């Protein structure tokens, strides 16, 4: 059992390491900002995920300490947040370097959210009352 775990951990670690490296390498190698976005959000995710899984197994099976499920939690957190960071950076890219004309348009007319200026209807702005927002 322990040997299996040891082998398993080693394999996962090596694989995770490779993915981690590849993720970062992609950041350097890929040609433009949008493509570079793919490398880390994916590979680093699995890289870290692998390390966390390895750690999980380690504490489950081999460690002197009792079992630890913490790594699972971190994995969940990373998986929950990685798409959002990807989205935000993608939007930043669009905002900084892309024109709406160079993108495919949304099917129902309108515009992609990033390019849509001045969307708040004037009626809503009236509720602005700085005093009420003092945070106090």
């Amino acid at each position, binding site marked *: 059992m322990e040997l299996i775990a040891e082998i398993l951990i080693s394999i996962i670690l090596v694989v995770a390491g490779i993915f981690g490296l590849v993720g970062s390498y992609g950041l350097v190698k890929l040609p433009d900002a949008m493509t570079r976005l793919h490398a880390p959000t*994916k590979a680093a995710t*699995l890289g870290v995920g692998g390390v966390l899984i390895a750690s999980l197994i380690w504490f489950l099976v081999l460690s002197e300490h009792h079992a630890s*499920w*913490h790594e699972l939690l971190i994995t*969940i957190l990373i998986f929950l947040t*990685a798409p959002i960071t990807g*989205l935000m950076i993608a939007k930043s890219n669009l905002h900084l370097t892309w024109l709406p004309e160079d993108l495919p348009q949304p099917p*129902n007319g309108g*515009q992609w*959210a990033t390019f849509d200026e001045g969307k708040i209807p004037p009626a809503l702005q009236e509720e602005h009352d700085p005093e009420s927002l003092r945070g106090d």
Partner: protein
Amino acid sequence: MLRRLFPHPLLSALLVLIWMLLVNRFAWGSLVFAVIIGITVPLLTAPYWPDRPRVSGLGRILSYIGMVIWDIVVANVQVARIVLFLPNKDLRPAFIVIPLRLKSPEAITVLAGTITLTPGTVSCDCSEDGHALLVHCLHAPDPDAVRDDIKARYEQRLVEIFE
């Protein structure tokens, strides 16, 4: 009444699970505490999540999660291959538009998240009315196929879960 006590039952369950993971050791006392947390924290944060999404089918959810995890593993291998071996000049990045049948923000978010976590695609933006997603593909010689694949493989299932 029950609805007011559990504004987000799934969230409550998740929090119980998270607490137990954090405590890292099973004990009934911890479970009691976890339940207390599972009730109070969603209550505290309920104002920030005003309307509760309708979700149904635990089995469907679990199978969706399993499928995504598998896809992620595959995605990573594919992306690694592209990063390592595909010369930049042969790379065919593309933007694709995914018109949405999903209406609930939660469902759209799950879809966008799935897209980002899976092979070679990143959700980049949402249309202003929320009826389409803009997705960037790392290497998509055939963008339409990617779009159809996403709609069929993920959106369809999410429609079943959320509607």
